[in-house]
């Protein structure tokens, strides 16, 4: 049993991160308001960053800035990757919000259920 309990204790924070990720996924899939879907996408993205950063931490180490009094540093490569990912995430959020604004101006609603009905009615009217 020590193996199982040991595994659970070691991987506990990965599982909490996955739980948060699934909450973000639930918002994206279940909610029909577009702005809430975009917020859910942003939540999903930040939990993915957390999942990437966790294996890079070394207990007893410090931030990856070299100085004379430290010897053990955290792994810098995930930091670089996540920095790029954060900026790309905000760029896609800006584009998504611009599209939402244009859809609202064209159709008068941002609820996906109503939109699907309106677009179907337009297609049938053609």
């Amino acid at each position, binding site marked *: 049993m020590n193996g199982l309990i040991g595994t659970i204790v070691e*991987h506990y*924070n*990965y*599982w*909490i991160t*996955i739980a*948060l*990720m*699934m*909450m973000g996924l*639930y918002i994206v*899939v*279940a*909610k*029909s*308001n577009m*702005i*809430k879907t975009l*917020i*859910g996408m*942003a*939540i999903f993205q*930040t939990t993915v*960053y*957390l999942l990437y*950063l*966790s*294996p*890079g931490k*070394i207990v*007893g180490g410090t*931030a*990856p*800035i*070299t100085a004379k009094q430290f010897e053990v540093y955290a*792994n*810098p*490569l995930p*930091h*670089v990757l*996540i*920095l*790029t990912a*954060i*900026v*790309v995430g*905000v*760029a896609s*959020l*800006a*584009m998504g*919000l*611009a599209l*939402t*604004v*244009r859809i*609202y101006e*064209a159709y008068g609603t941002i*609820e996906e*259920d109503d939109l699907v009905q309106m677009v179907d009615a337009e297609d049938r009217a053609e």
Partner: protein
Amino acid sequence: MGLLTLIAVVTVGVITVRNLFAVTVLFGAYSFLMASVMLVLDAPDVALTEAAVGAGVSTVLLLGALYLTRTEEAPPRNSPLVPAAVAVITGLILIWGTWDLPGFGLADTPVNTGVGQAYIERTYEETAVPNVVTAVLATYRGYDTLGEVIVVFAAAIGVLMLLRRLPAGSDEASSEEKEK
């Protein structure tokens, strides 16, 4: 970890609250808590970026979009069971996937003894820059940073194309609408 519990509480708030202003403020709080967790994981560069971008720019952009659309979410019409089942099944598959990951915080994993360690040792001699993350971002992996700046450029152009009204331009704007 108390911070992660707080984050879970804020996320439940984002799911259930229907007034979108409140959801935006909760999203700002979520970003701030996420930045604190990243700081605990020894990543100050990433924490600074996440706090500035998430609680700063993202919140302002969401408020701008709410200014142009409406701020109340309609009551839910579909049953939440199927999406919840999808989320739970995906979560279980991911948990099964992380079973073999090395434990938290160990130093002799393949992740921490490969290229990352080599970068830490070589950076100060080759570039005289103590901040390893900036050096890797701008010199060793500079090509990716150029790609990232181009993504920001493309996003700005995309938003301007979608949302910019031409100044005197009632002719071009109305001919654009006649084309639709």
